[in-house]
């Protein structure tokens, strides 16, 4: 029971990070039917930007509690902005011209973009792990039984709260604003959206920006949680988040969050109860099993009949 609760907390934290990244995959797929393989690397870059901001602010302001809070806030905001710019540029140079080309073209371009970004960061930042000093090590003890302490760390609380808040804002934008309506319209019928005066190119660009901003939140949280980032960090979390998007039903926003949570939980529980070496095998096996029985994913929408 104690182990279960503790792993649940850990799993939800990890799942929040995956869910945030998964939204970027699922939104882009929803609107242009393309898997943006560079999205994981955009997430990695966001963690680096956050790291640089964090180091810069703490170098100036010191390591007091207030300074760390300020540093994280600056890291989050700057990372969201810089990462959005990266994503916007990628869409502009690598994908837009290929729209309307054969389906594999943008996909291959995305893989190329992914390799480029990874190597760019390796050359620019070096191949070693980049750490930040340990922060927010305090935990809240929830309960104790037979010497096993169930605790939630401030970091975990921060991650879960920030994720919940941003998902709420994001949900509101997509469901209730003209921008979100235009996005959903483009997702369902681009030609009709254009006939109604929607600038489809701009809406797609905004979608890339929103996906990147959420990935930047994930990147900053990832850095806060693990305290370290390396140039190859885009790959495995990226693939996991993509898996989460597919598991939840690609194209579905609640599906992305649910899929992220499930992948996070499966991974954490498997590590705790079975073998940590096989945690990825477990996560991807669940994906395979779900897809065999529910090819649309858990919350995927069935194809709507075109009349």
């Amino acid at each position: 029971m104690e182990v279960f609760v503790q792993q649940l907390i850990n799993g939800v934290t990890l799942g929040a990070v995956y869910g945030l990244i998964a939204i970027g995959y699922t939104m882009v797929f929803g609107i242009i039917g393309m898997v943006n393989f560079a999205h994981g690397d955009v997430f990695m870059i966001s963690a680096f930007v956050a790291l640089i901001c964090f180091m810069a602010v703490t170098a100036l302001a010191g390591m007091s509690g207030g300074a760390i809070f300020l540093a994280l806030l600056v890291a989050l905001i700057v990372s969201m902005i810089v990462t959005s710019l990266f994503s916007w540029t990628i869409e502009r140079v690598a994908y837009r011209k290929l729209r309307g080309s054969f389906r594999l073209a943008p996909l291959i371009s995305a893989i190329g973009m992914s390799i480029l970004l990874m190597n760019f960061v390796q050359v620019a930042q070096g191949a070693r792990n980049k750490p930040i000093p340990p922060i927010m090590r305090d935990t809240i003890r929830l309960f104790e039984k037979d010497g096993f302490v169930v605790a939630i760390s401030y970091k975990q609380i921060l991650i879960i709260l920030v994720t919940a808040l941003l998902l709420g804002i994001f949900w509101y934008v997509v469901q209730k604003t003209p921008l979100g309506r235009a996005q959903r319209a483009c997702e369902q019928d681009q030609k009709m959206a254009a006939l109604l005066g929607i600038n489809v190119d701009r809406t797609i660009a905004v979608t890339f920006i929103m996906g990147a901003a959420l990935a930047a939140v994930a990147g900053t949280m990832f850095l806060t949680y693990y305290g370290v980032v390396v140039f190859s960090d885009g790959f495995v979390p990226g693939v996991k988040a993509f898996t989460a998007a597919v598991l939840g039903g690609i194209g579905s926003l609640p599906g992305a969050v649910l899929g992220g949570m499930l992948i996070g939980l499966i991974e954490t529980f498997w590590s705790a109860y079975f073998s940590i070496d096989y945690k990825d095998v477990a996560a991807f096996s669940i994906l395979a099993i779900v897809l065999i029985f529910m090819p649309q994913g858990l919350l995927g929408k069935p194809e709507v009949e075109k009349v």
Partner: protein
Amino acid sequence: MSMTEKAPLLAVRGVKTYYGNIIALKGVDIDVHEGEIVTMIGANGAGKSTLMMTIFGKPQAREGSITYDGRDITRMPTHEIAHLGIAQSPEGRRVFPRMTVFENLQMGASVNNLAHFDQDLEKVCAIFPRLKERLQQRAGTLSGGEQQMLAIARALMSRPRLLLLDEPSLGLAPIVVRQIFEVIREVNRTEGMTVFLVEQNAYHALKLATRAYVMVNGLITMSGTGKELLSDPQVKAAYLEGGHH
């Protein structure tokens, strides 16, 4: 047409449209004047819907020109054309299936940022009471007729000066068809809205029309007033046989 008459609101001149290398419109000339209801009839595959979409630049005409309100819109991006006061209820209705009826209508009003939304919502709900009952329902769950009403209502929500209707009667029960043609006549008469419609349901469409064109294989083969075409023996033989008269 007299020399003193105003320039047409919509002028299509020598328009050729291709799908890849296949020519769909082989040089089409059409005039639509302010306040008119202009009908185009023609068989399936004649190019009527292609013309409707070419006016909106999807696909763009490869040759010829399209002028709206004195402006050349031949190469203008589709979404900018929509901001000039042209609206279309397209072939296949194309309602957004996973949005509610209400949201579909909001989409229709997005060119003017929902400026007169409440007022116009009330108006289209009065025209189509069925939609009012279904405002919170997803459009994909509507029947074909209701979707057609929604597509027309959505086009009306932008308060267009020129309304393009592509087969508004397709697949509808005769009583609904009559109702929809009545709506077209009504918006034309009370609001002076100019209407250009494409129809296979030739009898009703010609009865409604100020002027009409016949399209065959990507070319205009005949034009005249609605009455003239209704009584033309060729039109009768080709489009009205076994029809509703």
